[in-house]
């Protein structure tokens, strides 16, 4: 699946034609500013025409199928997903009392999904060795966690492991009416669009996975899903927004998971673009 083309398809025609950079990690649109791409940690302009409110609305309209009301829940969290492309939204927020979401938009961040085969391969044997012990993938936002998680799911599945994927925002698999856009392996079952807590038990009961994978543990409900899965003796592979173990320990949500002993090791990502590095850390409180 060509993530760059998917993201470019959302853009106004003149921006789409000007976008030649196929290795961009993000495309950023800000009202009153020229559009930029994020490459190797730096933003670069790719068109001289400044963005308008109309440009942002067109992108959101295309991504939501002219149905912003149908993605209102995701919008209240500050983003929506389009076939694997995460579109971060910034603007003037409306109060929750009147339904939340945004009254006006000021900028968008289109995160280009990628299939990076072979990344983090050196650490794969360690993950395979002890599947029932939980593994986390850690980095700051935009650090490449989802891409690495996707590759690990594929490799572990191709190695014969039955993997169940909780793909709440359809960013791991980019599933549409034609099936999964990304290859997650021959022995993978993917549950798309269901909250993790609800989906965890469904997946365990119905698909008998040996490993459950999920992106972004960010809430108490997500942590509860993790504990449910671990309680059934099934391995877990998940990601978390944190730059390392030390930072994890200081956050109550992750501290609870660490204390439960669910996760025994972490793959920490550092660097940007093709210079990213992956190291394994044993997790002990």
């Amino acid at each position: 699946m060509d993530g760059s083309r998917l993201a470019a398809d959302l853009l106004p025609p003149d921006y789409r034609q000007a976008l030649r950079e196929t290795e961009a990690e993000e495309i950023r649109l800000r009202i009153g500013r020229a559009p930029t791409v994020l490459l190797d940690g730096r933003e670069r302009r790719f068109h001289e025409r400044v963005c308008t409110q109309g440009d942002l609305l067109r992108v959101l309209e295309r991504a939501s199928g002219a149905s912003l009301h149908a993605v209102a829940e995701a919008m209240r969290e500050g983003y929506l997903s389009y076939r694997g492309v995460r579109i971060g939204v910034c603007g003037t927020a409306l109060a929750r009392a009147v339904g939340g979401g945004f009254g006006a938009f000021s900028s968008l961040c289109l995160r280009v999904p990628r299939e990076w085969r072979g990344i983090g391969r050196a650490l794969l044997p360690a993950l395979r060795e002890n599947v029932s012990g939980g593994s986390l993938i850690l980095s700051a936002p935009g650090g490449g966690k989802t891409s690495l998680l996707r590759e690990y799911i594929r490799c572990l599945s191709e190695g014969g492991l039955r993997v169940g994927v909780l793909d709440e925002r359809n960013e791991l698999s980019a599933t549409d009416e034609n099936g999964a856009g990304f290859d997650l392996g021959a022995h993978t079952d993917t549950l798309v669009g269901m909250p993790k807590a609800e989906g965890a038990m469904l997946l365990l009961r119905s698909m008998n996975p040996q490993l459950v994978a999920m992106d972004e543990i960010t809430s108490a409900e997500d942590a509860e899903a993790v504990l449910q899965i671990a309680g059934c003796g099934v391995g877990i592979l998940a990601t978390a927004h944190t730059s390392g173990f030390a930072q994890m320990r200081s956050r109550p949500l992750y501290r609870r998971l660490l204390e439960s002993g669910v996760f025994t090791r972490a793959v920490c990502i550092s660097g940007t673009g093709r210079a990213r590095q992956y190291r394994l850390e044993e997790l002990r409180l």
Partner: protein
Amino acid sequence: MRLVGALLAALACLDVALLWSRSRRERINVLDGLIRAMNVIEAELGGKASPLPPLMTKLSREDGTIGAFFAAVSDALDSLGAQPFSEIWRSAVHAHFSLLPEWERSALTELGNALGRYPLQMQREAVALCREQLREQLALARKQYGEQARLVWALALSAGVLLGIVLI
């Protein structure tokens, strides 16, 4: 030959009445169909917050002009991004509802500016407003048709007979 000519002239007068009657009834049917479609849209938005693409596809299965309108909107949704939904909707309104007067088409176009864009409650209010406007026009159209139909047919018949007599 004169008799044939007189008959043709009489039939032409009746044909004018027929065309008038057909256009009025078609407008009434279109307004009626649009009101039913508004009911479906309001129910789908209210009950399930349905996305517009499957809703347009569902309504495209309606008969006649209504189905053709929603089919045109549905087919054009692939070009979202190149043009906004409001423009897709507006083009379809003008292409399929030319028999409606300008202000009725404007009411429909206004609805297209709101659909899929604003919070759900505002969209439902826009649908309800459009439906009420169309309902008022439908009631007026039916009343006028009832009042004018007999007159038009009577005039057409009289003109036909008169023309026939003159020609014979």
